[in-house]
């Protein structure tokens, strides 16, 4: 399957996680890993699974590298109909009111433009005990399985 991992990052933690997910999926799939800041919204296609990894920064805001992408989506009438994505968020429950709002905002934005979200949004808590990759790798495997049944073909 064609998989594009898109990450929105501020400190680099989401980028590192995106690369880990890419390494884990690389053997069985055609994987690329791209910063949202380098991904034109016109490049989405219906044959690809998009795995989105996005942190939260400041007061529940999108991280810096996701902001230009979000601005373009907000400004235009881009249709993401037929696009499938799953999303994983990074956040810190020290800031409980806005915990993982970055990934929440981004998921909303993608679905508002017609993209289909596969599975529940998964989240990591920097103040929790789990390592991000221990949650994200099973999430990615699950998302790939959902996409395979949705796309009606294996790998």
């Amino acid at each position: 399957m064609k998989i594009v991992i898109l990450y929105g990052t501020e400190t680099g933690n989401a980028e590192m996680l995106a690369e880990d997910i890419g390494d884990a999926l690389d053997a069985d799939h055609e994987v690329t890993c791209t910063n949202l800041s380098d991904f034109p919204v016109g490049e989405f296609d219906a044959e690809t699974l998009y795995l989105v990894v996005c942190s939260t920064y400041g007061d529940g805001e999108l991280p810096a590298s996701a902001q230009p992408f979000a601005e373009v989506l907000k400004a235009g009438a881009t249709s993401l109909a037929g696009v499938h994505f799953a999303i994983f968020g990074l956040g810190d429950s020290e800031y409980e009111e806005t915990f993982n709002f970055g990934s929440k905002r981004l998921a909303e934005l993608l679905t508002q433009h017609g993209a289909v979200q596969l599975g529940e949004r998964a989240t990591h808590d920097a103040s929790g005990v789990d390592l991000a990759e221990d949650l994200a790798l099973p999430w990615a495997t699950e998302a790939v399985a959902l996409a395979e049944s949705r796309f009606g073909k294996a790998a």
Partner: protein
Amino acid sequence: MTHKIAIVGAGPSGCYLAQALLKARADLGVDLIDVLPVPYGLVRYGVAADHQGSKAVTRQFARIFERQGARFFGNVHVGRDVTRDELRSAYDVVVFATGLAADRRLGIANDAAPGVVGAGAITRALNGHPDAGPLPDLGARPLIVGNGNVAVDIVRLLGKLPDELTGSDLGPEQTRWLAESGIEAITVLGRSPAAQAKFDPVMIKELGKLAGVAITVDNAGTADDEHGQKLLDALAAIDGDGTAARTIRFVFSHVPLAVETQGGRVTGLRCRTVQGDEIVVGCTSIVTAIGFEDIGDLPRADILAQADSAAPVYAAGWFRRGPRGTIPDNRADAQVLAADILADLDGVSAGPERPGGTLFEGPRDVVDYPGWLRIERRELAGADAARCRVKICDRAAMIEAACHAEETSS
């Protein structure tokens, strides 16, 4: 031959630079050199003990050493153990990323009186920095001067109840100091109007969660831009928060004029208000959180001049830009600098093999990355339900932990 790059300072700027360099050119020989036996600088000693989420960037930095091939040379004091000239001849490129650790002084009468302490000095002591002095007696009514996140960190830690420090890596001595502080009232005073304060709104909002304080915000005024309005909203959200006996009060638009003392002790800060009146804000101590400057350990002006010249010397992070910008700002900055360094190296042959890290061989106790991991394992072994780590705060004990393999447990 591959190029050898020395980065002086293994804090966030140095680590992000090494990360960006090695991501672009995995063959480079990158060595991070630190005056301390442990890496990560400000992340370990500046980021507050109760902000462990912010310290999680060290997982990225660990990979620089574990997967990207960078080496750590800790407990090496450039300028004393090795000279800058020796470093320059041992490496193709030298980068200074030593930060700015000295507290800027108020620059008013009596600003060095006993009872006037720097926020950086307190932060280092709270974070168990091996060279930090003892934690000071702040008395019952400390006054914090400054409107940035460093000031908020101090207020938050001073205002927290012991339970609210669960999960931090605050040490036992520091925990006792906070618990026994006897603080009744904290004043946070800024020279500018509230809307121009440098606080992050999210840091202000976080104060609203403290159970052991009652917060008031005086004369916050109005804002004429979006950031200012967000800040005023955050301040309004915590104004009147809590009913505890211990108070936190924010005061804005007060220009410090002189430190008032009696019998050699601080009794207040003379200020000019926005109306032009002179008043004295009473206090038992003054914590200055008005920015940082060079500690003067390395000749910064000379180094910055070299960095501007054609010499293969560069400066990064706060040491280059001054004390502004967050950890992610320094990541972005490091990525730009890495591109500059790589462009300068492009097409330049590394020439004869340079000695690189062999420069540090000899009788002194250099702590390498495996040595740091031994220190860290010992620190993590002390963790319990209340603390995620028990830092080793003494330099000799760090070196001992680094250089001696731990007893194998039975």
